């Protein structure tokens, strides 16, 4: 008997699936083979008939067919007015199908920020929510007390999209029974225990407060361009993307897409400032101390950084 896995797409763009197709060592095929995954359904990959697919779905919901892993991609759409009719399958709100399958699954995994926290539409009449969180608040579709039959809560793998290495890493850990310590949002610390900022090649510019004021420069993007690298956690500069790079390395601010608040309600390319100091400061830092530290750091900045000689 293999490990049965059912992948359900709800209110999303399919980007986590596209990201997963980029997985390396193991790639998607190797992962399925190594973990002996019996992929009951994936909306982009399966070619079974609709009739057979819905038979699987019914059997899972009725407890006839055991389900090891339920993966949900995309937000749970509750609108309009809590009916869920903005996103339906077989005339039924998808959110209800997810809730019914989650009760039968050994593990439930939310892939991407939409499935984890609601993401796009969580502040509009679309009424999106996450599986077990609504933004920062525990609850979401399944409720704060939900535990899958393994005894674990929903494992949240946030990111827009989620990094493919995180998806394959988390699935491997669950199947192999490897313990994954979680953070306060039920995300594995292995990938959400460090700031995006860690590993950014612009780090030294941040350290000495050499600020980028417009695109095309080498300085730090945190002070003016809206970068969330020092504010949110995630693996982008640890694992890198497509084996090559990350947004901050390519001069694009981190938008904090792993955060429960994503998409934030303020403009993405601007840093909110109070007298030249960002409103939001790196986690756990004292504002007055930060001000002193950064003033001194800027004064100590070596010439090679001030003149942007150091490459990124």
């Amino acid at each position, binding site marked *: 008997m293999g490990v049965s896995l059912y992948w359900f*797409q709800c*209110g*999303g*763009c*399919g*980007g986590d*699936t*596209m*990201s997963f*197709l980029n997985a390396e060592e193991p790639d*998607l*095929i190797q992962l*399925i083979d190594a973990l002996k995954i019996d992929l009951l359904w994936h909306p*982009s*990959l*399966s*070619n079974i008939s*609709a*009739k057979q*697919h*819905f038979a699987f779905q019914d059997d899972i919901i009725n407890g006839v067919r055991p389900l090891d892993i339920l993966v949900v991609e995309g937000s749970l*759409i509750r*609108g*309009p007015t809590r009916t869920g*009719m*903005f*996103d*339906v*399958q*077989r*005339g039924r709100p998808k959110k209800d199908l997810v809730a019914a399958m989650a009760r039968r699954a050994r593990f439930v995994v939310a892939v991407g920020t939409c499935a984890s926290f609601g993401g*796009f*539409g969580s502040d*509009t*009449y*679309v009424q999106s929510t996450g599986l077990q969180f609504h933004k920062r608040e525990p609850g979401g579709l399944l409720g704060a007390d939900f535990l899958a039959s393994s005894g674990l809560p929903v494992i949240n793998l946030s990111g*827009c*999209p989620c990094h493919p290495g995180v998806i394959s890493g988390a699935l491997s850990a669950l199947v192999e029974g490897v313990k994954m310590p979680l953070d306060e949002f039920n995300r594995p610390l292995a990938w959400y225990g460090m700031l995006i900022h860690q590993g950014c090649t612009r780090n030294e510019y941040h350290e000495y407060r050499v600020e980028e004021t*417009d*695109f*095309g420069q080498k300085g730090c993007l945190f002070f003016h361009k809206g970068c969330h690298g020092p504010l949110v956690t995630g693996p*982008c500069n640890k694992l890198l*993307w*497509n*084996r*090559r*790079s*990350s*947004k*901050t*390395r*390519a*001069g*694009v601010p981190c*938008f904090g*897409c792993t955060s429960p608040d994503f*998409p934030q309600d303020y*403009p*993405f*390319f601007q840093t909110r400032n109070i007298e030249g100091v960002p409103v939001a400061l790196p986690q756990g830092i004292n504002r007055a101390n930060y001000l002193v530290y950064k003033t001194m750091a800027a004064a100590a900045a070596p010439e090679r950084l001030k003149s942007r000689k150091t490459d990124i």
Partner: protein
Amino acid sequence: MANRIVCDIPLNRAEGDLEIKVAIDDGHVVDAWSVGTMFRGFEQILVGRGAFDGLVVTPRICGICSTTHLMAAAQALDAVAKVRPPGNAIRLRNLALMAETVQSDVRQSVLMFLVDFANPAYASYRFHAEVVKRYAPLAGERCIDVIKATKYMLEIVSLIGGQWPHSSYMVPGGVAYPVNGPDIVSCRHILRNFRLWYEKNVLGCPLETWNALASVSDLDAWLADKAHRESDVAFLLRLSKETGLDGLGRGSERFLSYGSLDLPDDTMLRSCDGGTQLIPSGLYEKGRVQLFNPNLILEHVDHSWYADEPEPLHPSHGMTEPYASGSEGKKYSWSKAPRYDGLPAETGPLAERLIAGDPLFTDLISRRGNNLVTRQLARLTRPAITIPAMETWLSEILEHSGSPCYTPVDESQLEGEGAGLIQAARGALGHWVRIENGRISHYQIITPTAWNGSPRDGEGRRGPWEEALIGTPVKDPDNPVEVGHVVRSYDPCLVCTVHRVGRSGAVLQL
């Protein structure tokens, strides 16, 4: 009408699922409705946000073509700012978009289209065992190979923009950061490896050999050559012939391209129509190309779940007010119905080839009429013309190395209206934006799938793939593989139908 049945067919292996409702009479489709069943409200999310925020929000509309939304959003803001990016910025933007498009063309053709030939419906055909070996989902040799090769192609996007999918490196005025010479050289290695793989496995011959085919008889001779028979292109053509699909999926014979890939001032590449874009714009109908006029685009909502409007609106002042109760069952989709000069139009790679005057595809359409095989062939072979253009632009970037990649645009000073009209992988994509006081006050998007998969309009005219389904034989309503072939030949991207098509479900209703 004793044998008339109506089925709701959930269609997966589209980017997002889709529900096709068909009426079948004596084993043939006699009517069809394309039903989008998900609404995500992206246009409303944008209103009130920062002027540049479309660059972050709109790529998240679609996981397989996020770069195309980024390009349309950036070009719409270029238009608002009245700025033309420097030459190398145009090249970098184009390269990223082309890399994504090549990825999409090959992934869709093999993982989503050819996979259907491994369906049990074809179990009695002599090709079946071989096709299962090649194209079975997640197990077929070609599927495994395509997953591997396409992801390396996407590393070009990552080297330019940091990651794929969902980055925001195209900004009004250019790109966020220049790419250094060694990374451009890496892009050339990636592209070279991809070209060799594509020629050997997908095309079965050098790009130049394929690009020299100029008529149906050239194509027949190419197919008869044993050297080509193991390629995916040959399989597409042979399987379609053996299963009798080559006459199906005619649809509308009106083809639309907005034009795409701006030419830098000092490039060696030339547009075939002498214009300013590598992919020309136009409307192809009855063998003639007419000039494209963006003012002739209107969106109907008569059959869509939106509040009725007195008349169809141009997207620069279109509305998106969900109205889900439907007027007596008349409304049936979350997709609006875009029309060009009052009529439906098909868009995608085939439209691009016809409007560009490609001799092979012009001959195919004039001799055989529009059909699903020609539509899919245009997609699977588009990389043959895309890859050489990418090679030229990579070389030109190195020749102009050190030149600027960004012309400053101040977000806080931005004011006015603009449109970004491009050719995405699936066809014509438009973003229409208005900025007031540094904030977005209006945003409308029309996607390629809104064109191809549109519901009926105010005159009751079907959308292109609704029309293409008429006459399609359906042997087994429980496994209507023929309907899948027709609709998938348009490369449906349902998450992309912003307003917003998606998902379905549905059991057979007898």
